């Protein structure tokens, strides 16, 4: 069995992993290796052939594959970065700091000085939402349907219903329509849409696809293939209201019901957040083990790939710092205050800028985001139309920050 020493080993070559490679490479460590299960870099970007990527990071609007290509070309300048595709990380022996990687070429033991985890997310499966009814052919998660259409040139059906109005669900409703698959409706259990306003407009309204808010699927029918899907309105306790059922004659059901950070390989030794299931990190991307860093959707589910790359870069940079000087600074927890649903990172690490990502619990027309460290006000600004579906990014530069716990709250303006 071969053994390969490496300074920074990155697991996953999606938007976060490529960012991490850039961040680490720039710091001039000797060797950065990216390990990837698929045969190419880009991860989920490869199948996202729609526009809307890169407005922050590259200051222009790109498709997913274009975005992936752009980061890849940035990486070309660095000879200390190596990409290895078709490789599967079997396990991590965190005590001996080795990573066991399996591929058609055999098994390799990597001995990294630091590790950056950028494994992305998986889709919640149909069983994850206790979908009632039959389980015939024709039920796809959005990502799987997207993959068949965009990468494999295959049609998942003729008439579809989409569950979940997050951005992925909305974009899939449009993609299906453009490919000649009739989308009867998008169904959302919450009283407000899960995706960005611009996607509601560009993906549904422009194509006259109805959106049923406060609705859910109460029965899938069809023994061999999906034949009908019954939806019903939900009351305030999320229980279906009898008599509100609507039947759609569709042969395909596309589920876009949430992403779950992919942490199976690490959960025995890295702390994860019980609520988001993401890997717990500091503001440098450091996890609960000082030599392991993480970034992207395996830490928290982001709205924008640009943010993912940025966070990846940061984690890569600090991983490289750690290779060079092995130091670790003090850290202070970030606490969720009023109306904060999701908050990332979990800790502030001294000496870094604080890049906060948050989602409100409940929609708020005008809310003040207030960030305090003890009695010191770090941030206090009014934000209009705050929605759980829209992640907010607040940047606080390092010089403003002192010592002590930090609280984040959103209050009525």
């Amino acid at each position, binding site marked *: 069995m071969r053994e390969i020493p490496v300074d920074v080993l990155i697991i996953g070559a999606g938007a976060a992993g490529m960012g991490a490679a850039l961040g680490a490479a720039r710091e001039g460590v000797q060797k950065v290796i990216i390990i990837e299960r698929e045969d190419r870099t880009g991860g989920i970007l490869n199948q996202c052939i729609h526009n809307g990527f890169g407005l922050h990071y590259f200051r222009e609007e790109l498709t997913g594959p274009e975005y992936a290509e752009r980061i890849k070309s940035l990486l070309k300048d660095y000879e200390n970065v190596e990409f290895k595709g078709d490789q599967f990380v*079997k396990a991590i022996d965190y005590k001996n700091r080795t990573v066991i990687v*399996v591929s058609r070429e055999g*098994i390799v033991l990597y001995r990294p000085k630091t590790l950056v985890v950028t494994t992305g997310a998986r*889709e919640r499966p149909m069983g994850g939402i206790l979908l009632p*009814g039959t389980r015939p052919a*024709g039920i796809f998660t959005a990502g*799987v349907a997207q993959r068949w259409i965009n990468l494999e040139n295959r049609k998942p059906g003729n008439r579809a219903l989409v569950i979940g109005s997050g951005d992925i669900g909305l974009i899939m409703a449009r993609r299906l329509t453009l490919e000649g698959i009739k989308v009867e409706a998008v169904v959302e259990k919450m009283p407000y849409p899960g995706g960005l306003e611009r996607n509601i407009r560009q993906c549904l309204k422009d194509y006259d696809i109805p959106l049923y808010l406060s609705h859910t699927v109460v*029965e899938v029918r069809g023994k061999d293939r999906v034949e009908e899907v019954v939806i019903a309105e939900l009351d305030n306790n999320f229980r279906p209201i009898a008599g509100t059922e609507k039947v759609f004659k569709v042969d395909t059901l596309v589920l876009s019901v949430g992403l779950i950070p992919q942490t199976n390989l690490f959960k025995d030794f890295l702390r994860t957040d019980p609520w988001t299931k993401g890997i717990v990190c500091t503001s440098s991307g450091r996890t609960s083990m000082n030599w392991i860093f993480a970034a992207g959707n395996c830490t928290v589910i982001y709205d924008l790939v640009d943010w993912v790359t940025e966070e990846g870069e940061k984690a890569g940079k600090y991983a490289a710092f750690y290779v060079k000087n092995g130091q670790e600074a003090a850290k202070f927890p970030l606490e969720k205050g009023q109306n904060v649903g999701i908050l990332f990172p979990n800790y502030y690490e001294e000496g870094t800028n604080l890049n906060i990502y948050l989602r409100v619990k409940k929609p708020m027309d005008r809310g003040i985001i207030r960030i305090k460290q003890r009695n010191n006000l770090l941030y206090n600004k009014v934000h209009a139309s705050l929605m759980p579906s829209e992640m907010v990014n607040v940047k606080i530069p390092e010089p403003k920050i002192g010592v002590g716990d930090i609280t984040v709250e959103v209050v009525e303006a």
Partner: protein
Amino acid sequence: MRIGIIGAGAVGALTARELTRYDLEVYIFEKEFDVGMGVTKANSAIIHAGYDDEPGTLRAKFCAKGNEMYSAVAKELDIEFKRIGSLVLAFSDAELRIIEELYKRGLENGVPGLEIWDRDKILAHEPNINQEVLAALWAPTAGIIEPWMIAIAAVENAVENGAKLFLNTEVTDIVIENNKIKRVVTNNGDFEVDVLINAAGLYGDYVSKMAGVETLPIHPRKGEYILLDKEEFGGFVKSVLFPTPSTLGKGTLVTPTIDGGILVGPTAVDLPGERKFREDTSTTIQGFEFLMAKAFKMTPNIDFRSSIKTFAGLRPETPIKDFIVGRTKVNGFFNAIGTRSPGLTAAPAIACFLVEEIQEAMGITFHRRANFNPIRKRIRSYIQMPLEDWDRIIEKDPLAGNIICSCNKVTEREIVEAIKRGARTVDGVKFRTRAMFGSCQGGFCSHKIMKILARELGVDVSDVVLRNEKTKILYGKVRT
């Protein structure tokens, strides 16, 4: 002598295998695309200890015996079987009296190792059980298994020993002459047979009627289940947890599965007997709510946000709530039906009994074949293997290094081997390899598996099916 078996569920498959020990021609007729896809696919997968069954019933006769036989059967067929023990929990004095009854009944049925445990002992063994528990009946011989594997492995072994398997072959009529079995009529041709065994599960009464033998009517009793992700809930309980039984059956259990997840179920809802209900494996909101309430009572810390799969099975129930096994008024026609729970457990004992019963009823003696091979080997999995060994294998066989299913770490070699052994469908691969069984339920790998199936079967990926020819997953190309 030609012996036909209708149905390749646990009962038919094990019976077929048992018969191949003798100098006989054995035919297995199965209407589905694959074996083990009837009642045997979707159930609690418990090899019951045998204390539930009232003495004098066929259930009592075959369950404890079958349980005992499973160690050898699982070893010969190389299928995973774990005797993890079961606990019947009592939360009141009334329930305590019932488990004491079960204890006595168990002794009468010859169930070994039964004990009544007090609260401290229960909680020391299973800390996640509701603290209010009073006592429990501990049965160390109860076990878990992958039920479909019984059928898959037993048929593989039977075929290895000369049995002929006819899939997609539905028996539609049975020809009797002079009150003796003559021929079975199927959608795949007619077959002359001397003996016919009806192991048609949910359709057992229909098949019996084809032979002119009236039996008690069968109706389906639905049981719904929820499976929790092993990544989140693995190890939550170590043994099979039952509530104290009621008249409706053994109740909703919480148990580990062989794959490491936690299974909650079943419900018990009687459906009418008409054919369409015998295919109704739909799940329901009421069913889920029922299961959650029952599970919370036994294990309050359970969290259904970690569910990854729901399904339902149908018990072939008769008014007498017992199996119907043995000779009939038609010479050469034998029934092995009404296989409600604990039919899986009883199956090896039923199989052995039938071999004796046929000889006795027909006044003949079977002759053992010298070259019967009882051993079947499972598809080799690499994930637990020492790394050096795995590395050496990959050198000669690169497919053994290509991990396809990320969650259960199943390689391309295992998938190709499953197809070689008869998987023709996505489900066929799934049940033989556990690919797509994990947290993502195929989100990352189903497309890869479909492409491997297409390649190995020599078809376009659009022609790959989920479980039979009516379940195509894709509708051709998007852009031509």
